Structures are given as structure tokens and as C-alpha cells.
């Protein structure tokens, strides 16, 4: 059985004397004490509830780590009868390792009502990809504290770059079109390197259509290059390639290339 122990310092309400009254606006009060004037079983106690978490979001929902890292904005919608005093998140990376703790600040709302707190996380270039998670700490101005373990998780993946070229630009209707390019993966601290053994999907969107349909699927070579052919008889339209993402690497889509069939 998991043992839960929450520790608070008892016996202090009233002990700090008149000066403690001034603490309310400067820092949270000490935890209420059992048997003190602030007894939750009486109606004189006032607010004994820690802030409630309504919603916690991370933007973007899926993080792409580039050569300079990435930024993530965390937004928490909270409510508390007395007002939220402090909110922060502990950030854990894809391997479960502790990354850092970030304070959140009030972005909207007023104490006593719905409050929106937010903060910007900076993911460094050496950040480990995977499913990141946030522990959230909340304290109100009365000293009521709570925390939420793994209150939000979000995927973090390394950037990839995919280029694509379809040739020839004006093929004969009975001929073939060759789509080729190179897939590169971000190697933290080293820039981009060829991504070998990755699946690349080549798609075609006929002129006037709104959707791409898969035409061919291939695997990148040791130098990250790929090449595949398709009949030009598909007609006029736009070609492109896509890497659907794999393991620690983010999906990427190439630029599109228009072909006019003669």
C-alpha cells in the first residue's frame, strides 16, 4: 500500500503574532494547524482548500526541438477562494529525468475568481526527446498547498528536414515522374545529419483536388537520400514527400512541386 504523508508545520497560527497578519499579502501563511483557531470542522475557518486546477495546457501540444531548442508555454486555469499565491511546474524529460522548475505568473483573472497563470519553458538543445511531464505546485495566499503529479504531458521530438524534387517538370503522359530528395535529422549539438533507414511517403494531389494521396513509399539510404518513381499518367498536379515521424524524430513534410503533364 502506498503511504501518503503530507507534512505541515503545526502550532503556528496565532503564534506569529500581529506581524503575521501582514504576511498575507507578502507570502503565504504557514499551514493551518490542527486544533488551532483555523479548524476546518468549524465555519470560522475560512478557506482551507488549496487552489483547484481547472485546466493545464502546454503549447504547442507537440514540441519540435530545433537547433536552438524550443519554447513551450504552459497555461494553468485555476480557482481559489482566497486567491492563488504561487504556481510552478517541475519539468521532467522523456527519460523521466528532472529538467528544471519554472514559476508561473498570473496572466489573467483576479484572486477569488478564475485565474489564468502561465509561464514559458525553455527546452535546451540537449533536451531529451520523449514524453515530457509536468508536476504542478499550487499555493494560495492562506498557505493551502497542493501539487499534481504528471498533471500534463506532451511529446518532444527532434526536428527533421525533408527536401523533395519531382522531375521532369513537364513529363510526357506515358512517361514517369521521379521524386527524390534527402531526409536529415537534428543531432543535438551537431546540427543536421543524414537520416538513414527512414520511411518516406510520396504523395500526389491532382489539380483542383484538396487532398494528397499516397503514391509510393520508400526508405532512405545511408546518406539520407531517397528516390521513387510514379507514372506521369496521374496528370497535372502537385507532388510532395512526407516523413511520418519515428522514435524521437518529428514528422516533416517537404515543399510541394507542381508538374504539368504534356
Amino acid at each position, binding site marked *: 500500500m502506498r503511504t*501518503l504523508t503530507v507534512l505541515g508545520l503545526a502550532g503556528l497560527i496565532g503564534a506569529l503574532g500581529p*506581524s503575521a497578519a501582514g504576511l498575507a499579502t507578502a507570502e503565504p501563511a*504557514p499551514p493551518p494547524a490542527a486544533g488551532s483557531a483555523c479548524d476546518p470542522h468549524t465555519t470560522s475557518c475560512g478557506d482551507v482548500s488549496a487552489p483547484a486546477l481547472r485546466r493545464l495546457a502546454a503549447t504547442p501540444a507537440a514540441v519540435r526541438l530545433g537547433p536552438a531548442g524550443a519554447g513551450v508555454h504552459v497555461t494553468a486555469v485555476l480557482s481559489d477562494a482566497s486567491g492563488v499565491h504561487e504556481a510552478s511546474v517541475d519539468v521532467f524529460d522523456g527519460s523521466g529525468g528532472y529538467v528544471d522548475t519554472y514559476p508561473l505568473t498570473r496572466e489573467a483573472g483576479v484572486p477569488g475568481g478564475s485565474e489564468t497563470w502561465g509561464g514559458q519553458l525553455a527546452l535546451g538543445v540537449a533536451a531529451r526527446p520523449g514524453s515530457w511531464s509536468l508536476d504542478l505546485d499550487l499555493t494560495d495566499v492562506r498557505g493551502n498547498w497542493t501539487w499534481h503529479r504528471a498533471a500534463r504531458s506532451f511529446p518532444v521530438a527532434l526536428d527533421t528536414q525533408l527536401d523533395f524534387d519531382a522531375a521532369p517538370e513537364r513529363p510526357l503522359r506515358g512517361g514517369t515522374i521521379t521524386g527524390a530528395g534527402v531526409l536529415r535529422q537534428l543531432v543535438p549539438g551537431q546540427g543536421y545529419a543524414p537520416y538513414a533507414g527512414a520511411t518516406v511517403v510520396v504523395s500526389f494531389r491532382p489539380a483542383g483536388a484538396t487532398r494528397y494521396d499516397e503514391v509510393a513509399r520508400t526508405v532512405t539510404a545511408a546518406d539520407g537520400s531517397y528516390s521513387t518513381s510514379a507514372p506521369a499518367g496521374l496528370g497535372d498536379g502537385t507532388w510532395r514527400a512526407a516523413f511520418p515521424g519515428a522514435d524521437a524524430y518529428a514528422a516533416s513534410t517537404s515543399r510541394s512541386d507542381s508538374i504539368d503533364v504534356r
Partner: protein
Amino acid sequence: MSRLPLKLPMAATLLAGLLTGLLAPAGTAPAHAEDPVPYTFVSTPDFLNADNADVSDSPYWEPGDPNSINPSYQASLTKVLRDVARWRPDATLLAGDAVEGHWGIDTLGTGIFGPVTTEAEQVAAVRLAAAQYYAATVERFAAAGLPLPHAAVGDHEIGDNPWKGSPYGDFKRRNLTTFKRAWAGWFTQGGARYAQHPVGTSFDTTAYAVMLAPEIELITVDMFTRTSTNVVNELGSGELAWFQAQLADANARGVDWIVVQGHDPVLGPVRARSSSRQVYRGGPGSPFWQAMRDAHVDLYLHGEVHDTTAIQQDGVTQISHGGLFYKGQFSYLVAQFRGDTVQLQTRAFRAATDASSLLWQTDRQLEPAGLHYAPSSYVSGTMTLDKDQHVLARSGLLDVYSPAAPGSPGSTPRTSPVSAARAAAPPGRR
């Protein structure tokens, strides 16, 4: 003196203190509205009183072996030390028990610090463990932007009591010098860090005096003396003589504030949590205390009891403070010297633990693997003293301690069921 030139009237000083440092927002750097900035030190005895470090650095560690740290501890350590650093302390103090220190044995047979079959192997394991855990302590303070602590030897720096009555107790006593040297290498640089120390005694590298500021002297003592059959909690004779001379010299030089740091309490009763409650041999009747009394020492700071109590006697204020980090009880003392007053406050944290599994140590497996600290501390006690040891204000855990009085802070259960009921999330572990 450069740091304390302004001699404000007492009332004004107190008021300024209440409006600035004592009520500083926990989430921001403490306000220093006064000019000049006070001299500030933070004291964290018994931090951590446990072995927490990434021991995968050990040459004997192998994949699959346990470790003495995990992400929940790393997060908690980062948060509490950042909270300490918000005070921008000029100095940090650590009155012993930085570690668990049960080294030279390997209860679970992991071999992480090498074999411990022979005494030579045990000694090597002590040195290796000390290098791991003391290095981690030093690095943590540095990473938080905190000064290297002025530290003292506690019982855990020498393997923890007892030091007789068992083969391991005898080993620790026989190798007391090994334990102390291992500690001194990190905290006094083998004595070289401090100009004043009891040269020619066996406490040469573990006791010292240092001027923290032109009018504040800190004297740190080692109160663990080996006899032929035991280790006793008192200063060695040569160390005591040096201590008395150091105090006399401080008095002769007119040092305004004398702060003494040792591991054990001298006065009682004091609050205690999860402690073997060692006390200084002879208590207030000891030559050690009498020397402090005669020299008008202002503050005697100690650890060992993992709790907070202030006692005034003979013109000396003894402050018990600190708490067990792994139990979620870490607390610290902030001392701010302004003119003729010193403002003290103890600060504690909200925290949660999960003992469904434990972190590894060489001997006792005590530390819950799940640990979570709130990012900011709160005031648990305050005390303002003038140079004549008049109490200008005191509150909370630094108020008068009367253990027999119902309803006093000391007699109230320390774990609040109110707080427990408000926990919204299980602490979990990582």
C-alpha cells in the same frame, strides 16, 4: 565596520526588519529596503543527514545497481536550495550531518563502493563514499549560487553513533581520523581554508574561526573526541584551550557578534524529531558552555535534533534548527545582522513523501523514494535580538519553548491532519 555602519535606534531597526527581510516574499529575493544591506547568513544543519548523490560515478557501480538519487530528489533539492539562495546570503553554515555516513559497510552487498571484507577495504570504501557524497553537497551549493558552507563535523561525518559495542562501532572509532580527514578535504581543505584553527591538536582540520564580516566572528567546533574506548561528545582539551583563547581574542578585539557553531545542543529541553538526541557532555556546566558564557557569545547554533528551538541562558542564545530533508522536514535559519540587532527567522516547507520504495544507502535504507517539496518556504519562527541579548521580538518556533504547556507550539503534533486532508495528489515517486 564596512557592513554594519548604521546604528539605528532599536525600534526603527525592528520596524525596518519587519517591513523588509522578515516579511520578504518567498517567491522573490528578500527586500533590503534599508541601506546598507544587512550581513546575511543561512544555516542548514543536518542537510541532508542522508547519502544522496549519483553513485553511478563510482568505479564499482554496475548497470542494474541501485542509486542514491532520483529525479524527485533532484527536483526537491533544486527547489529548496533556490529558496535559500533567494536570500542572497553572504555565507552559509552547516553544523554537521551533511551525510548519513554509514560508510565502510555494505548492508545489501551491492559492492558499489568496492569490497568491504578487510579493514583496508573498508577504509577505501569510506574514502570513496565520502568523495561521492561530499562532492555532491559542494556541487549543490555551488549550482544554487550559494557560498561553500562553513561546516562542522556531526556524528554522521564520523559514521554515526555508537562508536563501540560492535565490530562496526569499533571500526568507526579506530578510523575516526579517516572519517574526519575525508570530511575536512571538502570543507576546510584540510585546514587550509581557515587561518585560525587549533594547530597542534587532533582538531586542527575540523575546528576553525573565521571573520564572516569585520564585526561577526564564527567559531566552529568539533565536539567529537575519541577516547580509548569510545567517542565522547565534547571538545578535546587542546581544542577547548584554543576555543577559549579564540574567544578571549575576539573579546579583546571588540568583535561585536560572536557566533559559535557545533553539532550538539548544550541546553535543553529542545524539540527533536527522528534524532538520537545526543547532547554536549556536561551541558551548561561544561567548560565549553562556560567559556561561551564568559565571552558573551551571542549565538550558539547547532543541529542534531532536526527541529527548532531557541533557548536563552547565561546571556547566550542557543538555536536548534534544521530538519530531515528526506522526511520533508528541511528547514533553515536566516540571520540578518543590521547595526546592533540580529534578526533570525526559521523557514520550513510544505512537502510530501512516498515510502512505498526507498533510496539506496550503504547501510540503513531510510529514505522514501518519493519526495516532493513546494517551491517556496514559509516563516516558522522569528526572533530579533539586540547586542545585549534583549529579545525585541520572537514568534513561532523561536518563541519560548515550554514542552509541558498544552497548546504551546512545542506540544502540538507536528504533522497536521488538516494539511493531510488537503492533499489533492499522491506524491508518487520517480
